[in-house]
């Protein structure tokens, strides 16, 4: 029994409850959120230290033995994801001090933000498939509220599309979980890994696997299921955009990574090498072309969220130790960079008065240091060495070349090139071009407290991107260990089901 495993759920949940109790006092809510997210970060660091030597922490909810109750489990991948998401939550909580207007703060931004983090943390630590569905729903309802909070017309427009499409995805996920339960009689992911191999009709397992690709793929915004994302992500408050772009789709990628290395490994030629490979290539191309087609900074970044999901799916599709390590590395890099890009776009909009390229410009003249700060995530996005984006792309391309998957490597490189074109365009439009209204005020024009709240997260996240770039080896080591654990799941299964693993007799066999 190790309570640290439950911390990614308990800490945000307690924070959400406390901020809810402090409904009348916005300053108190802010302080509680900051304290809660700091505590979450500390717990995440402690969790990573616990699992770094290959230990797998398991906690059985309510003391029910493994296949019967709900299991919470933390291995290397979980710990990495919890740590990165806690960092983003803290950065966005700081940014929200300067960004969230009094109306949104009074109508519940802070409690719902913490509730969203409950769902994110829960999805990472759960070892039970139905429980994972529940955490996805917690995340979903939190994101609905955050998206609509403020109630501007564009927000309602985006939120309606987001809600409708995600409700269908939810039904698909629940159906997939139900069918898998029907053929195996269990929902515990470790036991599923054992039982799925014993199902006589492997064809139906593959069919269910494809349904899972649809369900988790819709959450991860892959081609052709991504249309809810560019419709909605640019509409809410900047802090909300940033946490959505950083975390929500990546939880979908995490779920795909977990289920398609642990459970659905029976027919990898079809599910991984076939469907996921095509999805990966088309997602990259669709996303990057979309980002070049729009003339609005926030919408361009929204499309880039889609494009870079493709890289992660590509690593999963290649399904070699190097490729899966590349996915983990890419997840870490992408979460930091996407959060940073949206936070940066928020500051740009605040200074320039527009998010449209036509209404922007003159940033280099007004705020040269800020421009340099924004260059870091943009360059990392395009994959300039020595930033984090370069190493993560390098690992994936290398894995692709080893597998002689020339086509997907070509698509990945073309996508990188087009991303570079986008970054050049944004740089020219936003930073170098003179502003249409003449000179604009720099960050010095903002009140001191607000300036600190808006810029400090950018400094932190850009610093992380540079640090990952310069010290890529430790991150790669962690990613490789996470990948090794994913690809040989016996210790994971043993840690959950006990030692030695009991022969999977059908206890509680269906009547």
């Amino acid at each position, binding site marked *: 029994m190790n309570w640290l495993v439950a911390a990614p759920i308990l800490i945000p949940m307690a924070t959400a409850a406390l901020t809810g109790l402090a409904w009348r006092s916005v300053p108190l809510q802010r302080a509680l959120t900051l304290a809660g997210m700091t505590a979450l970060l500390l717990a995440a660091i402690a969790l990573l230290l616990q699992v770094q030597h290959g230990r797998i922490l398991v906690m059985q909810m309510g003391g029910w033995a493994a296949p019967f109750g709900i299991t919470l489990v933390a291995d290397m991948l979980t710990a990495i994801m919890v740590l990165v998401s806690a960092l983003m939550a803290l950065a966005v909580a700081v940014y929200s001090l300067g960004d969230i207007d009094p109306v949104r703060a009074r109508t519940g931004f802070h409690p719902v933000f913490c509730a969203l983090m409950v769902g994110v943390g829960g999805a990472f630590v759960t070892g039970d498939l*139905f429980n994972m569905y*529940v955490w996805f*729903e917690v995340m*979903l*309802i939190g994101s*609905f*509220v955050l998206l*609509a909070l403020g*109630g501007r*017309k*564009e*927000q*309602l*427009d*985006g*939120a*309606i*599309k987001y*809600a*409708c499409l995600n*409700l*269908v995805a*939810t*039904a698909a996920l*629940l*159906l997939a979980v*139900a*069918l898998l*339960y*029907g*053929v195996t009689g269990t929902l515990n992911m470790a036991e599923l890994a054992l039982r799925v191999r014993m199902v006589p009709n492997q064809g139906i397992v593959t069919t269910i696997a494809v349904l899972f690709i649809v369900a988790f793929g819709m959450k991860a915004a892959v081609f052709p299921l991504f249309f809810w994302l*560019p*419709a*909605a992500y*640019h*509409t809410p408050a900047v802090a909300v955009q940033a946490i959505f772009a950083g975390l929500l789709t990546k939880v979908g990628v995490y779920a795909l990574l977990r289920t398609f290395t642990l459970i659905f490994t029976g027919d990898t030629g079809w599910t991984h090498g076939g469907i996921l490979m095509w999805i990966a290539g088309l997602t990259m191309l669709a996303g990057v072309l979309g980002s070049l087609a729009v*003339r609005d900074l926030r*919408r361009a970044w929204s499309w880039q969220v889609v494009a870079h999901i493709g890289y992660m799916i590509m690593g999963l599709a290649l399904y070699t130790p190097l490729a899966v390590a590349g996915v983990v590395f890419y997840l870490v890099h992408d979460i930091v960079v996407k959060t940073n890009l949206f936070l940066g776009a928020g500051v740009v909009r605040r200074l320039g008065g527009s998010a449209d*390229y*036509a*209404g922007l410009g003159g940033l280099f003249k007004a705020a040269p240091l800020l421009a340099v700060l924004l260059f870091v995530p943009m360059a990392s996005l395009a994959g300039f060495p020595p930033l984090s984006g370069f190493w993560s792309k390098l690992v994936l391309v290398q894995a692709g070349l080893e597998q002689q998957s020339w086509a997907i490597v070509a698509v990945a490189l073309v996508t990188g090139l087009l991303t570079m074109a986008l970054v050049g*365009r944004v740089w*020219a*439009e936003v930073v*170098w*071009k*003179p502003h*249409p209204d003449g000179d604009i005020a720099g960050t010095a024009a903002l009140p001191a407290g607000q300036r600190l709240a808006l810029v400090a997260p950018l400094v932190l996240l850009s610093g992380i991107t540079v640090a990952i770039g310069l010290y890529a080896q430790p991150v790669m080591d962690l990613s490789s260990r996470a990948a090794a654990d994913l690809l040989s799941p016996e210790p994971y299964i043993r840690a959950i089901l006990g030692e030695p693993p009991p022969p999977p007799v059908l206890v*509680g066999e*269906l*009547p």
Partner: protein
Amino acid sequence: MEIVLAFTVGALVAGSVYLLLSRNLLRLLFGVILLSNAVNLSIFLVGGLTFGAPPLIAEGRSVLEAPYANPLPQALILTAIVIGFGLLAFSLVLVYRGHQEIGTLDGDALRLAEPPETPAAGGGATAIPTQDRSAA
């Protein structure tokens, strides 16, 4: 009995797909209701159907003995119904609010967040010429 339920689920899904394809947002939400009910029924179905056998341990025994009803699907369905109800209530209010603010229930008319590109929209000095800039 399984066959009857399976066809019921199929009919519900067919109806829901018909409604989901509608441009009217309210019909679309009704489609979502039907879909989630179809999924709930299929959870019930895959859990195995038994007649008149409670999921209770008989007096004097320590384990369940066949025949007994599988107690898990009802727990799963209950959870799914509660979650689905919450999401649906929120979505209905959202669509209603959208109708109040934007004044339409037509999904195709919702173009505020993604305005259609007009030739004049990109007017203004930019470093990179695009093909429809000439019209500005």
